[in-house]
């Protein structure tokens, strides 16, 4: 039974179907693994009772021959951004202290309806604001991978979905939810050597997800294989009448897209993603090598240009904080969460928010507030929104020439918690440089492990970016990259076997 945590979702579904093991056994194995690997700090709350009860119900369903879900009996980690009924949800912020939602987010509800078993809530950057999972009120998450030049170095898992990424990589769940506003799924997926998929904006409901930047936030998957991504995405995606930005388009069976073949597909290589400075040589090498292999496998590699790419980062860092400054105004000490009293209403607000928000969140609220001020709104916010449209147009043009775009996900491999760059927020933002353009354009993008760094042995992910609602194409390509890369799909067993 010890190897249950090493299975992929697809393998586990098979084993459960064949009654080789039960959902309770599978769940218990993961709960045990979680207990052994607490130093990763991947979970901020473990929910063994919920998990075992759901696992038991799943086993009952199978025993009684009732309808079986797409994720029946699969233990998953839930990013603490998703409101879970009766289970504390804080988005890893002190300001949501003790908040127990009386409702379940649409995405987590769908996953439950498809039979999955929630193991607990995973760590994340506070309100999803961060690239290294260093802003969580519950502390940093450790990447289960080790830098071979310095094995004791505390490596960050990437953010903001760092807890989910570390948990999936280490075998503390079979799959986990993430959320991606500017790269929050893809950066940690790259750093932790797993598959992370941000689907098209509007593909998954945002209802019940703690909002960061509403026009960018999108739910997504974190798994160890592309096939698992296809299974999980099919369970979470879909129209929700409660979200005015949700798209009413049928959800295909994504597993059917995994043909193992890229013949005839046109794959774009955007030259703007290959700057002279700011791209690690190993990452560049893996990217080039992968493109080469795809060509050998029958794909057509096309050199393309997305000229506004260099402007994506400033655009993102003007739009996202502006929306966030307003989205986070509701945390005022009145309805839920932390309250720090004061003599007047305004004093109570100020005390609560000053104490409740961490430094990075406060920084972004201040920036966002500034950008929306009269006198700044036009030159900052509206200008950024115009550039956003230009970026979208360029992508649209590109997809007339190519089926998908292949690009690095992160400019580097995972770095140390105490590296110099982590104290400079503007440097940290550079890690989002390759992920924000597709976020701004709302396009689906999957990060898939494609190789490792020759210097430090750490995983390197590449992203496959598709046109709107063409998740099937990006998964098809990612699946081929996965099989060509020889990257491990088994967890690292950080807690030891």
């Amino acid at each position, binding site marked *: 039974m010890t190897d249950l945590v090493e299975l992929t979702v697809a393998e586990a579904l098979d084993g459960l179907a064949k009654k080789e093991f039960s959902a309770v056994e599978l769940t218990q194995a993961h709960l045990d693994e979680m207990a052994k690997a607490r130093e990763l700090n991947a979970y901020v709350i473990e929910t063994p009772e919920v998990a075992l009860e759901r696992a038991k119900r799943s086993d009952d369903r199978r025993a009684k021959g009732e309808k079986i879900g797409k994720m029946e009996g699969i233990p998953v980690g839930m990013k603490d951004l998703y409101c879970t009924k009766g289970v504390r949800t804080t988005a890893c912020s002190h300001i949501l202290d003790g908040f127990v939602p009386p409702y379940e987010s649409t995405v987590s509800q769908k996953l439950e309806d498809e039979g999955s078993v929630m193991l607990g809530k995973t760590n994340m950057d506070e309100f999803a604001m961060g690239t290294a999972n260093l802003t969580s009120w519950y502390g940093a998450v450790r990447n289960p991978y080790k830098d071979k030049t310095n094995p004791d170095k505390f490596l960050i898992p990437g953010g903001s979905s760092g807890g989910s990424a570390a948990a999936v990589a280490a075998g503390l769940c079979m799959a986990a939810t993430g959320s991606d506003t500017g790269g929050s799924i893809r950066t940690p997926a790259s750093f932790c050597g797993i598959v992370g998929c941000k689907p098209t*904006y509007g593909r998954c409901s945002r209802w019940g997800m703690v909002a960061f930047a509403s026009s960018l936030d999108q739910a997504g998957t974190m798994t160890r294989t592309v096939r698992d991504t296809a299974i999980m995405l099919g369970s979470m995606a879909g129209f929700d009448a409660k979200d005015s*930005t949700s798209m009413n388009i049928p959800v295909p069976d994504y597993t059917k897209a995994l043909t193992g073949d890229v013949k005839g597909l046109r794959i774009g290589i955007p030259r703007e993603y290959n700057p002279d400075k700011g791209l690690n040589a190993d990452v560049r090498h893996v990217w080039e090598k992968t493109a080469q292999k795809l060509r050998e496998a029958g794909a057509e590699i096309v050199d393309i240009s997305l000229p506004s790419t260099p402007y994506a980062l400033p655009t993102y860092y003007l739009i996202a904080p502006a929306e966030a400054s307003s989205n986070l105004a509701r945390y005022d000490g009145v309805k839920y969460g932390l309250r720090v009293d004061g003599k007047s*209403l305004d004093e109570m607000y100020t005390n609560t928010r000053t104490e409740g928000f961490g430094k990075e969140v406060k920084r972004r609220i201040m*920036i966002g507030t500034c*950008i929306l001020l009269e006198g700044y709104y036009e030159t900052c916010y509206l200008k950024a929104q115009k550039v956003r449209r230009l970026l979208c147009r360029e992508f649209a043009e590109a997809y007339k020439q190519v089926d998908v775009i292949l690009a690095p996900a992160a400019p580097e491999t995972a770095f140390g918690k105490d590296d110099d760059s982590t104290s400079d927020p503007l440097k940290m933002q550079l890690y989002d440089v390759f992920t924000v353009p597709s976020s701004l354009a709302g396009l689906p993008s999957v990060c898939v492990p494609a190789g490792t760094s020759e210097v430090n042995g750490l995983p390197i992910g590449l992203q496959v970016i598709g046109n709107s609602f063409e998740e099937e194409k990006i998964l098809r390509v990612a699946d081929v990259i996965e099989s060509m890369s020889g990257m491990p799909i088994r967890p690292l067993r950080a807690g030891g076997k």
Partner: protein
Amino acid sequence: MSIDRDMVKRLGILSRLRIPDENMDEMVGELTKILGWVDQLKDVNTDDVLPMNSVVDDMALREREDVITDGGIRDEILANAPDRMDGYFLVPKVVE
């Protein structure tokens, strides 16, 4: 457009955040850098480009029927409130 301490104070008041004096200069510096980004964007020609608020802006806005489907959940609404009494949220007294 330049950022000074008064601007940081004003932003603090507007967003109900207290910025300690010792962090003022840091905040001034960061905001100034952000506005530097705005200068970068000035290089982009956006004449005749409309602002994009959302990538789904062109979709038809879905509307709900005028039917009562919610409410009647006072206990759940108040369950997380740090200060509540007799079915109300409580806040420090507001002098009008």
